[in-house]
Every structure is written in C-alpha cells, then in structure tokens.
C-alpha cells in the first residue's frame, strides 16, 4: 500500500500538471489576500465566463501543437468566419435562433481549416509559414472582400444567446451579480469530445504519434496526410465556434479585436506542459495553463498591479511559468533517456 502511494507521488512529481496547479493555487491565494474577492461566487463565475473563448482556442492550439505543428492563424480564422456569418445573417434579416449562426460558422471554419490542412498535410509545408500566410489571407479577405467594420447590431438570436445565463451568481456582501453564460456549455462539450478523441480513438492516438515521430507513425500504419488534414479542419471548426461565442457574449462583431490573442493562447498551452516539439502533453495541463493566463489577465486590478506595470507582470509570469514546465520536460527527458534509449509516446 505504502509503495503504491510513493509510486503515485513519484509519478506525479514527474508530470507537469501538479506544478502548474500549485502555481495556480498560489496565484489565487495571492489575489484573495490582496483583494478578498477571488473566491467570491461572482468572481469565480466571471473567470469561468472569461475562460470560454480562450479555452476553446486553446483546445484547438493544443491539438495542433501535439501533432508537431503550430497554428498562429486561428484568431484570424475565427474573426473571418464569424464576421462573414454575422454579416450574412444581418443581410438576410434572420430572426431565428443561434443554431444557424453556429452551423454556418462551423461550415466556414471547416473550409478555412481545410485551406491550412491542404498546405500543411498534403503539400508538407511548414505549419508556421503556412499559418502566418493564411492568417494574412484571412485578414485580407475580411478587410478587402467583406469591407469589414465593427457591427454593433447582431442578429437577435445571437444577442439573446449571449445574454442568457445558466444561473446568476450574487455576491451576498457587495450585492454584485454575474451571469454564467450558456456559452460555457459549448466549451464543456468540445472539451469532453476532444478529451475522449485524443485519449481513446485511433485518430487521437495518431495525432500524438505524428507529433512524436512522423516517420514512425507512418510505418506504424497511420495515414499521416489524412490525419493532419482532418485535424486542421477540426481546429478550424473549433476556432470558429469560439468566434461565435465571443461575438454573442460581446453583443457586437468587431473584426480585429480577437487578433493578437494567439501568443497568450499558445503560451498557455505550453505553460500547461505540452511539448512545443509535439507528441507529448495532456488536455488537463493545457486547460490549467490557459486558466492561469486567463486569471492573470483578469485579476491584475484585483491584485493592485499599477496600470503601467501590467504587461511586465503578465510577461514575467509567462516566462516563469513556461520556464518551470520547460525545465520539467527537459529534466524528464534526461531521466528517461538515461533509463531507456528509445523515445516513447506518453499521453
């Protein structure tokens, strides 16, 4: 019995998640001490609601990084598909529910994702170059062909969806209320589906395999091209869904204010222990890392960091956090290579 506990502890200490979790808890306690507001019900709901969009983006970025690629185009992809969707629905004066917006955005996301997938999967071009390019293309289409500007009126179905809540948290002391948006369900559903897929399906294991070693995965019988292509299509759909959630929750479609999110999202994924070289990492770690970034971004005023030091603080936290997980990963590799010469794929 005792040996199993020490074994589990030893196993845990080699993984990245406990460290991230520890950092996260420390941060939460710091915020609580500084403001006395962190663990209040309405603040926790605020954090959950702020997690929806970055969380969805992070799931997509996680899949790509596991496969050994990198995607910097997802904010532009999401902006383009949701902007086109909103504009189309406004033009046809659509009065129905949000489902049509989601369906159209998913279809557009699949097409745009296929664009990435085609070049990366079938033409074997480097993912960074392709997505940098496609990000420009998507922005360009939005600015040029769609002549984008901020849409302050969105279709009624999207508007209602954005303001509807699962429940409303009320802080008994301050009397402040916060809505838990229905959009969080979309996030949880995607999270569950991707978790299941990455862990228990041949396709998901294929993504890990490709990230570990493309040649080995190919020899082992995985269709590398098809797996990559389908994965980028899925990532495009997830990003577009995030775009729809963002627009509904903000009650307006702004064509550019999602751009620039990619850096913090990728930082969050790496922070969560996903190896930037691919093949290794867990969705749980990825979510913890993203949560850390979201909490930092939304708590600096609560901590009382002066406005002029805000970006320094965020940057330092990202460096320290990624540093810890990078050290952890390299340490793990050293231990492992000392034990067994062959590289193994770990979930």
């Amino acid at each position, binding site marked *: 019995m005792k040996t199993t506990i020490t074994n589990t502890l030893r196993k845990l200490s080699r993984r990245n998640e406990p460290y991230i979790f520890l950092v996260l808890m420390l941060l939460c306690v710091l915020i609580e001490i500084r*403001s006395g*507001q962190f663990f*209040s019900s*309405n*603040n926790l709901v*605020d954090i959950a609601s*702020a997690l929806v969009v970055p969380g969805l983006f992070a799931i997509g970025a996680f899949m790509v990084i596991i496969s050994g690629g990198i995607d910097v185009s997802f904010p532009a992809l999401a902006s383009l598909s949701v902007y086109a969707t909103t504009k189309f629905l406004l033009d046809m004066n659509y009065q129905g529910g949000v489902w049509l917006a989601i369906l159209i955005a998913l279809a557009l996301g699949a097409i745009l994702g296929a664009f990435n997938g085609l070049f990366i999967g079938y033409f074997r071009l480097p993912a960074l170059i392709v997505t940098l390019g496609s990000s420009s293309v998507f*922005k*360009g289409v*939005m*600015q040029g062909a769609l002549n*984008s*500007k*901020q849409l*302050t009126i969105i279709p009624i179905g999207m508007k209602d969806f954005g303001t509807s809540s699962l429940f409303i948290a*009320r802080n008994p002391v*301050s*009397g*402040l*209320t*916060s*809505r838990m948006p229905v959009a969080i369900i979309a996030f949880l559903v995607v999270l569950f589906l991707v978790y299941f897929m990455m862990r228990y399906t041949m396709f998901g294991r294929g993504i890990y395999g490709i990230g570990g070693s493309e040649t080995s995965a190919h020899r082992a019988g995985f269709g590398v091209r098809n797996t990559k292509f389908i994965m980028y299509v899925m990532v495009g759909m997830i990003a577009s869904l995030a775009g729809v959630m963002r627009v509904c929750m*903000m*009650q*307006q479609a*702004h*064509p*550019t*204010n999602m*751009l*620039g999110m990619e850096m913090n999202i990728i930082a969050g994924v790496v922070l969560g222990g996903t190896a930037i070289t691919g093949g290794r990492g867990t969705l749980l770690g990825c979510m913890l890392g993203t949560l850390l970034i979201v909490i930092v*971004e*939304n*708590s*600096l*005023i*609560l901590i*009382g960091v002066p*406005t*002029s030091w*805000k970006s320094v603080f965020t940057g330092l936290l990202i460096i320290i956090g990624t540093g810890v997980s990078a050290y952890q990963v390299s340490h793990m590799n050293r231990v492992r290579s000392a034990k067994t010469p062959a590289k193994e794929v770990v979930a």
Partner: protein
Amino acid sequence: MKKLMILMVIVLMVVPMVFAAGQAEKKTGYEIVVVPKDASNPWFVRMKVGVDEYAKATGLNVYQKGTAQIDATLQAQLIQDLIAQGVDALCVVPVDLESLEPVLAQAKKAGIVVITHEGSALENVDYDIEAFSNAGYGAFIMDNLAEAMNYEGVYTTMVASLTNGSHNEWADAGVAHQKEAYPKMQLLAAEKRIESFDNGDVAYNGAKELFKKYPNLKGIMGTSSYDAPGVARAIEELGLIGKAFTSGTGMPLDNAALLESGVVKSLTLWDPALAGKAMIALAVQVLDGKKIEGVVDLGVDGYTNMKFKPGSKTVLEGEGWIVINAKNVYDFGF
C-alpha cells in the same frame, strides 16, 4: 514634304502644351492622404465619409488609407510607404505619439506637409488640429459624469493607453475640473487610471474588476469610444444600474440601446467626418503657402474660429463638442 513640315510644326507646338497642361494640373492636384488609427473602427469609417465628401466637392486627389488593425508599428510602416510614394501632405491620427515622432520627422524632411489630429504633444508636425481644447473637452466629460453621479462619490478614469496623447489630457483636465467644481467627488486614489486598449472587451473586464475591488466606486470617466460602452456592459451585468455611472466619448447609433435603456445617461462626441475635412482644408492652405496665424477659418462647421493653443505654435483648437443623450441619439445620421 510641305505636309510633313506642317505636321512637325504642329507636333512641336502641341507636345509642350500637353506637358505644360500636365504640369499645371499637377500643381493644383495635391495628393493628400489621411491616415487614421485603423480602418475598421466606426469612428474612422465616419471620418472616411468626410474625406470622401471633401474629395468629391473639390476634385482634389484626397483619400483615406488605414491599417487593418490598430497597431503603432503598422501605422509607422504605412506612413513610411506613403513618404516613399511622394505624397504632398499627410494627415495623421496617431496611435502612439513617441513611436511616430521619428517617422513624421522623415516626412517633414522629405518636404511633405504633416497635419495631425489628437496628437497635440507631437513636435515634428506643421500643425495639429484639435476639435476643441483638450482641457475644455475633459471638463465637458466630467460635467456629464458629475451630473449622472449627482455631484458626489468616488470615480476613476479610463484611457486607451497611458501613452495616448489626447485621452490622458482629457482625463487630467477632467480630474482638475472635478477638484475645482465638484468638491464632493473624489478620484480613486489606488487606481487613478486604467487602460482599455481601444477594446470594448478589455474595458468591460477592467470595469468588472474595478467594481469588485472597490465597492464604493461610483463612476468611471471614459475617453476612448470603446470605454463608456464597455463599462456600461459591466454596470448592467453586475446589477449596478442606477448605482454606478459612466460617461465618455461614444458614437450615437452604436450606443442607442444603452442610452435609451438608461444605463448610460449621456455621451460626448465630436464629428470625425468634420475633423477629417478640417485636417485636409488646413493641409491645402499650407500647401497654397497661406500664412496660418491669428484666428483661422477652415470653412468647416465648428472649425471656422480656430485659435492657437496658448503657448503653442502648432496646435489649433476649434469648438466642436456635442452631447448625445436618449433624446438626440438619432439626430446625427451616424
């Protein structure tokens, strides 16, 4: 042979005329480019309307060209491209003052007339146009916020970024005006100014944090056109309607719902279309070699009685502010 001679004479006479005509046309056909902070903000979409109207009315080669997203580096690159193109005048609404200064110096060195708007602290410009004195407008926003707050309580200020020129001058002036005119109001000492990065979502999340951390906070003075609407969303969601207030710059039609529901009582504004026209009109006067001194009339509404800011040789100030409330929100046509 005779025919050929006549033909040659005609050609020799006509060709210089054609070139001369070309030259004459070039002399009046100034190429003037307006560079806004970005191309998608409705504020600058509205400015483009004014610029296009001006181009149509005068026939000058005047157009607006903005970057896809709001970014100081991209704006500097765009201006460098335009300098290389050899335009006659640049009318710029700067994103970040300090990083733009060397680029504007390049433009002036290349003999290009530089007019800016919302950049009164810039040095490398011919003239900077302000729709009004920054002190006057800051005080005007404060008047509106004070009225909503019933002239008492704790407030703070929000700007796009701490390096933004005009926003910070408005906020400073608003605070100064409050100290003078509204003794029962108080600036939040722990958090005097926060940034929204011209992003409604950042303003919304920032306001939520402020109201959580400082329960006695009663008002937020917004400056960017995203501030007050973003803060209003937070006030609505936190259940603070009637308890917390905001006022600041905002576009009428975009905020019609907020004004009509009473979450925001009044917003302040000037018309970006007119500001765009005024910049071009001034650029044309400078290019024509007209002396800019005393009281300047640019022939644009609200800019007919422009005066130099006291102590400055470059900053011209008009009288262009307006208040928007539930009653007049639909009167402006934008």
